């Protein structure tokens, strides 16, 4: 019997060292400002428009705002969204 000792090539992740928990959720979307964040990939905007339409149909007082972003999303656009909206729907296209 031969035992070969080798070292693992896999590195530790920074994200695990600095993990955060998701934001607390509202019980309903009624009256909230909903941000729709598009990353400029084809198909994503259609998906977001439909999601926004369905949310506005189901919940009273919802206002929608669309953010046409980039890959990666520009920081100023994200900050604008954080100032303007309560919750977000995003689409990656894939």
């Amino acid at each position, binding site marked *: 019997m031969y035992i070969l000792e080798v070292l693992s090539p896999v590195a530790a992740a920074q994200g695990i060292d600095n993990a955060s928990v998701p934001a607390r959720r509202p019980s309903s979307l009624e009256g909230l400002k909903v941000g729709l964040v598009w990353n400029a990939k084809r198909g994503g905007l259609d998906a977001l428009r439909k999601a926004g339409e369905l949310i506005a149909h189901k919940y009273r007082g919802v206002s929608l705002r669309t953010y046409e972003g980039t890959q990666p999303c520009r920081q100023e656009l994200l900050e604008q969204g954080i100032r303007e909206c309560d919750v977000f729907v*995003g689409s990656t296209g894939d």
Partner: protein
Amino acid sequence: MIQLEKAGKPTVAIVAAGFDRDAGMSATAFGMPGFRYAVVPEVLTGVSPDRIRQHVADAFEQIVAVLTTDAADAPLVSSTRGSAERLHIHGSDKYDAFEAMNRQFLDNEWGDGFPLIPPTSDKVEWLLSGTTRSPHDVVTVLPPELRYATVEKLAINAVMAGCEPAHLPVLMAACEALAGFGTAARVMLMSTGPHAPLIMVNGPITREIGLNSGRCALGPGAQSRHNITIGRAFRLILMNVGGAYPGRMDMDTIGAARKFSLCVAENEAENPWTPYHVEGGYGPDTSTVTLFETRDEIDVDDLTNFEPEGVLDSFAAACSFIPSHYTANFFDVERSTHRFLLMMCPEHANICAKAGWAKRSVREYVHHHARINGRLALNWARMTPELLRPEWKWLLKWPPWELEKLMLPVQESANDYDIVVVGGPAGKSLVFSTMCGGPSTAVIKDRR
């Protein structure tokens, strides 16, 4: 989207089935392992608007659930940057254990498919003798999973690829160069397209190591052994240190042979112009790594022209042979990140230089002549007109037969072309289309 969630804003991502593992690992990489998403059954980029709307309607309850119900606490995963974990592989003899290790590493997705050299402590120690840095120093944090690239982890992967100690500082510099791409590096490493980073080495280290800059420099064989092992090690590093595992984070649709190994030295001895790194402000005695993102390669076969205009028309033709949305000139998406790398063979470069053409003139000529017709240029814009740059919107009003008569430049300016000289004797060059925010150069340092 993780940034929004971190800012205290409930967020849901619409993700295609098959990309959910990718999404979950990306969320973890950015420090939000509990991030949730709604899954639609297919990739949205290739389906009709009606079908997309149906998929979203079907996933609507998921979307609402993610936005209105708190997640269960995500499991905490421990992480350490300390010494590498030791693995014990059993075999009936040394050769059997070698084979068992290779099977186990591939089962763990740690290999590239070719046999790996066992990263034993002794071998890794030997590799580490190539640098003055401590094994636990963090060279950088590598995308896509934002993992710590310690010197030791780079050395372990370098051993697996068959590297020598002198290669380690080159790999360290390649990792630093990748960091220079910023967040665009994640696009390069996770895309459904065949993006592969090309390592180009300049300076005296190329001769000291014996990197091939001449015939078949990007090909297989003994003359390119150092190119091959460095390029291979970098791919293993992208996987095991960065987390760019195929099918998990690297979502390439078909893949590319360029992803196995892609490293070359510039042929400075036969370059009639200033070497690439000197053009970038480095001294001729400084050794550097420049990383180019490559998405394809096109053969520029021109054995018949002996004047700059003829040779460069062949380059312009190659630069025109691209999908329209790769053209930097038309689309806001990834604006100004699309470039061309002209990898000129010495013969082509010397035809231009001997006629008195500087690199700048070469760039301007190719830029002026690399054109595609308006109909092809707008191929992508018909489905996503909102991405077309405002200055080109008027083109959408033109009929296809008129657009076909209109020849438009594929790049925004002559500065969107990089020129390097590589290869042996013959009039055969390569053109690569590049993007993702590069190229990026780092100095090779901390050599022992």
